[in-house]
């Protein structure tokens, strides 16, 4: 089962890490966006199964992308994972309010990422927070 994922992070090392983690497990087609603008372009025209977004980015931040996805008909099926460095801060609270399905606390491991994604995409309708 291949799914379609988008990683939005301004760090190319993080994007490479996420891509390698998911693609090597024969999991996914992974698209990358290095800025919020690039993400907007991609989200406007493509549907994703899972979108992984860093909270802290210049210009368009991760929360704004979640808010955009909530309003975008194309992204209603997407699971939203927010990457943040501090759990339980204002940023993650706002993420919950914007319907983030899960958080990844930086730094995360390959296994944590894979587990989380497979959990979110399991055909059971359970959403973890």
């Amino acid at each position, binding site marked *: 089962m*291949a*799914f*379609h994922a988008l990683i939005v992070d*301004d*760090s*190319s*090392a*993080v994007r*490479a*890490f996420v891509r*390698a983690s998911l693609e090597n497990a024969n999991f996914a*087609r992974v*698209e*990358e966006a*290095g*800025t*919020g*603008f*690039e993400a*907007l*372009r991609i989200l*406007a*025209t*493509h*549907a994703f*199964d899972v979108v992984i977004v860093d*909270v*802290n980015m*210049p*210009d*368009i*931040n991760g*929360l*704004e*992308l*979640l*808010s*955009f996805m*909530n*309003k*975008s008909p194309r992204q*209603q*099926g997407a699971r939203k994972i927010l990457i943040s*460095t501090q759990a339980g*801060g*204002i*940023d993650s609270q*706002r993420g*919950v*309010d*914007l*319907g983030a399905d899960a958080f990844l606390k*930086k*730094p*995360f*491991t390959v296994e944590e990422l894979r587990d989380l994604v497979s959990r979110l*995409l399991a*055909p059971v*309708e359970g*959403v973890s927070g």
Partner: protein
Amino acid sequence: MSDPRDNVQQEFLAEAQELVEALSRDLLLLDEAHHRGERIDPALINEIFRSVHTLKGIAGMFGYKHVGAVAHALEDLLDDLRLGRTAIGQNLLDILFDSIERFQSLLTLEDPQSPQEEAGVQHYIAAIRSIGIEEEVEDGDPIDKYAIDPAVLGVLTEYEEHRLRACIREGLRLYRLRASFKLMSIDDSIEALREKAQEEAEIITYLPSMEGGNDDTIELVVLLAARVPEEELNAHFESRYGSIEAIAERTHLPTLPPRRTSIPVLSMRPPSEDDGGQASLRSVADSVRVDIRKLDHLMSVVGELALVRSAVNRIVDSFKNDVTHRQSSMDLDRIGRGLERQLLELRTGILDVRMVPLGQVFNKLARIVRQAAREDDKQVRLVVTGANTEVDKLIVEELTDPLMHLVRNAIDHGIESPEARVRAHKREEGTLALNAYHKGSNVVIEVEDDGGGMNAHQLRDEAIERGLLTAEASQELSRQGMLDLVFLPGLSTRSEVTDMSGRGVGMDVVKTNILRLGGMITIASEQGTGTKITVTLPITLAIIRALIVTVAARTFAFPITAVQEAVPYVPNDVHTIHGRNVITLRGETLAICDLGQLFGLRKSGGREGRFVVIASMGHRKLGFVVDELIGQDDVIIKSLGKSLSSVRGFAGATDLGDQKVALMLDAPSLFTEYFEGPDAFRALESRP
């Protein structure tokens, strides 16, 4: 194929390096603004925070435990700084500057988790944590003063919220701007908007809305804070971005913060096949990061193609007098010329990609200048010209250490203390100039100070005292010759050695490193006025212009940068002085060395050869006796491989076409071999 994890690891190291460089650059700006007493741009502090924040994140993911720990502590400190909980001071700046060296050394650790580093890292972290936090006095949340849409407040990050608060406290008014942007060009449009806004306003955030947008355009709600009234702001933006509305100030109590909005959770669907925009899913980033080894590989492919081109040439030549194939021969010739043009373009293109501006190194040097000046209690103004001068990436990497040493030297030993400068009727503040420019196929870098200059006689006496020079030989030395003594191994003008100048290396090592890059270094100094060190380097190492010669029926190549001239060899003119063969050239005595004998290609004592190729390294010259001069050519050097890497005297091999291979002579090591004997060689190699 290589392990994909290696590539990801490379990606990490490259990004970490870039982040540390950006951090260093931004810290210098911060330091400058602080010392001038200017208002610190919050965006600058945020940039610094972001570099450290990103570094912390990726270090953790790639197992760089110590880098992560240091970045984490710094991040907390910077977070306090950007959220206004602590103020900038000298102590804080020093701690921030220390991080650069620390990150750089931690990133180069063989074992990124090395327990030996633990103590040092913890010590540093304790220093970071010791910087106090000034608690902010809260007198109600200023954001409550405005009736801001909860949907907007709900997407602000903690930092953006802080900036919003700070702007309101500073008395700025809040505005909302709604504008549509073309998705393809939104980055540029926002950049333009930001620049336009900068004079009058601070942009807090951009919220994409779904209204008024389609697949090609998107509407953004921009929240900004400005010092000026609404009409003036509208006039400033010339209605270019639609209307700007002021956000009303509240007259009553704020509503409750936004609750969690429930959004429908749809069941998962398979990846949709009917995506209309499949084709447009392309990356818009306009730069890529490339491993330099890949460029080396491409360059060697170009070299192979050049051989194909010469094979075609030979076929054309063989058809030349053959009337029956006249047309084919002409066609082939035309194709060959086309191939050559494209090859040249390809080669130029690859070379161009390898070029990076020297500004990268200069930024590091600026940090050294600041640090050294502080340690020595000196005042130093750094003046940089030609930071955009481009040079091969590999050269830039190798240049950093030598240049760092030269800069440190200029401040430690060149520029005087403010008191001494005043006594010498100079400005209290010394000037250190870094100049870079292109000169032919070379790049020239000058490190120039207006300090006390070098004492040539003291250098000479020092050299005699240490047995590096006989009193007799010193008689013949010109002033320049005395200055050049500074490049001798083990000579330093001062008895006490500061913890300076890059891990205790001397000018001899600087010189060796520059020579290894095919460059040269010269020194000019006037006592009381200052010192100028000039480093001349080839622009690239990938292609070298070479003089091709033959010796005992074998082909060799001299790097043209080392060759001064070639003169006919007259065996009868050769004399022997101190057991060395010399000739006299325009009144100057010149040592000569028969390459055939040196390489054991013919027995010693013979007087064969027809030309003397005169090579120079700095102020030293040596004539090499060869048989034939074939001509000049641009050649691509290939390494001799691991098994032959210990062979001295050669820099590599190069293909000359016609299945001919020439060995590229390594002038610096030949000079060392000749003047200092094989022992000097070993000493050089055993150096770390």
